[in-house]
């Protein structure tokens, strides 16, 4: 049997590869970066929502299962540059430091994931200009390494705000969809801050809180046990105050029906999830359609969310839309099963 190509070594791709190997199928696992684990590894996620498990406890087993499987041929820093269809399967050209050239594969799992919205595009929030306006993907790493101090002056902040839906649910930047993770992850970050530093006051500016399903527990806990405060309304702009020492969040408290201008020591932006550049490239390479949002679209998202509609090409994880790690891992398993069936003919 020709190997199954798994493109992308994030949670979805790692899960698909391990599942295929467990079924006895050879796998060619290709990742363009120099590490396994996708976005969670790239940004050094701290604890994971919703169960507050350290990210390593989820990522390490995913990676070690793949590294321990002899059936999986792994390539970091490698991409697919060209694709040609065969009567059954594909010919793909790999480009990487260890391996280059054409390989035949029986089927393909695309697990190419997402990219973060670039918060600089919401210029009114000052990200990139004011050092204490921080993107929450960077804040993950700051919590992880216990570096909660302000980039501007190294002081411990007394008051932090999170702003939800940055680059999501916003036609101005062309992203009308919901990022699904921003609420839970921001709330989780506030809880982590309160666990480590109960003296820091934490506020979340929201339009809606979307901690769907069983994740609601995290939201309740944050209020009931950690005293995280929620202010309804979206910050309209962030400026500097007190000679650059603090940030001023201008917004409307829509419950109070009043304008507010509140000073903070640090403001964290919950930037949305966009289709990854790798996902867009893969769509072109394999000639697959993308939806209006730019994510890959399953042919029948209800009935078979892992099938692209193109024979032999399967989809998993955040390549088809914002989603959480457990969903990405589950889809990796589903795609693996379908790809295996296709490869067996």
């Amino acid at each position, binding site marked *: 049997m020709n190997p199954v190509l798994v493109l992308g070594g994030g949670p979805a791709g790692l899960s698909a590869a391990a599942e295929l190997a467990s079924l006895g199928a050879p796998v060619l696992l290709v990742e363009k970066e120099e590490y396994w684990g996708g976005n969670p590894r790239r940004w050094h996620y701290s604890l994971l929502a919703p169960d507050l498990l350290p990210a390593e406890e989820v990522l390490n087993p995913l990676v070690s299962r793949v590294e321990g499987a002899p059936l999986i041929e792994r390539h970091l820093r490698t991409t697919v540059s060209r694709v040609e269809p065969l009567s059954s399967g594909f010919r793909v050209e790999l480009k990487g430091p260890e391996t280059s050239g054409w390989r035949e594969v029986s089927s393909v799992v695309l697990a190419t994931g997402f990219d973060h919205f670039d918060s600089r595009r919401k210029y009114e929030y000052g990200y990139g200009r004011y050092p204490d306006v921080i993107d929450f993907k960077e804040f993950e790493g700051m919590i992880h390494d216990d570096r909660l101090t302000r980039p501007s002056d190294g002081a411990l902040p007394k008051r932090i705000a999170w702003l939800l839906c940055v680059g999501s649910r916003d036609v101005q930047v062309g992203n009308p969809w919901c990022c699904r993770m921003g609420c839970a992850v921001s709330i989780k970050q506030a809880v982590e801050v309160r666990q480590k530093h109960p003296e820091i*006051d934490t506020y979340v500016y929201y339009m809606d809180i979307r901690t769907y399903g069983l994740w609601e527990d995290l939201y*309740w806990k944050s*209020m009931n046990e950690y*005293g995280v405060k929620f202010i309804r309304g979206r910050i309209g702009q962030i400026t500097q105050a007190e000679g650059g020492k603090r940030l001023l969040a201008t917004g409307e408290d829509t*419950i109070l029906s*009043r*304008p*507010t*201008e*509140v000073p903070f020591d640090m403001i964290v932006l919950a930037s949305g999830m966009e289709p990854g550049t790798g996902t867009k490239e893969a769509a072109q390479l394999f000639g697959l359609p993308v939806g209006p949002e730019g994510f890959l679209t399953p042919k029948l998202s209800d009935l078979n969310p892992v099938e692209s509609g193109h024979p032999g090409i399967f989809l998993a994880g955040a390549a088809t839309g914002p989603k959480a790690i457990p969903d990405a891992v589950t889809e990796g398993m589903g795609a693996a099963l379908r790809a295996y069936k296709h490869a067996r003919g």
Partner: protein
Amino acid sequence: MPIVEKSLVEGLERSESLQVEGIDVSGDWNTFIASRVHTDLDLSIVDWVRGQPQGATIDRCWQCGTCTAGCCMHTDYGLEEFNPRYFIYLAQLGYDKELARYAQTVWRCVSCNKCVERCPKGVKVEEVVHSIGTYLELTGTAPKSPADRFDEAYTRNLLARGILDEAGLFQTFEAGEGRTLPTGEKLRMGLRLLLTGRLHTGPLAKRTRGWGRLRPVLERMLSEDLARRRQDLPARLPPKGGP
């Protein structure tokens, strides 16, 4: 927009003599409306309320409005200003000035406890609202109402002689409010009350026996009680003067 009826405008500020950069802008030239922009968040109110046995569940509220929707006072009695959900929000985020406007209204709760039965987040709404009321009372962030002033006049009157002097109370309270009735009217009313047995004591009533010794004890108890209740109030707000 011209200000038509100034008494209707909230936050109007005007000073009788003011010079700005050498220019006289006294009187109507410097009538301003205070900014409605809220500029800070202060958690000392919610911290205090949470620390009270009654207020412990305040953090849970997520502003769904279930309590207000079923509240006897708000919905059935139609007292729109009495909005338990809103009081909680203001206390949670420390919007003290806005909260102070409701210092009187907040006590209108009739403790039917419908809100507590219905709140999806398990907030003991009735207790929390009372706790917010206590906070407002103790910190005196709100201007005193006629009811507050009556309470104070009543306590002073009672403490003076150990027995209530109703006519005297009426007299001092009325005078304090600047609402004196014509003397003829007062006499007529006093007489009618006396004749129908509803004016129990007058200036001639006997002082309570042993009051000279009892009074300082009571006074001390009252002031100690007040001091105890204020003990852990946030230092930010000046406590209100006692009766």
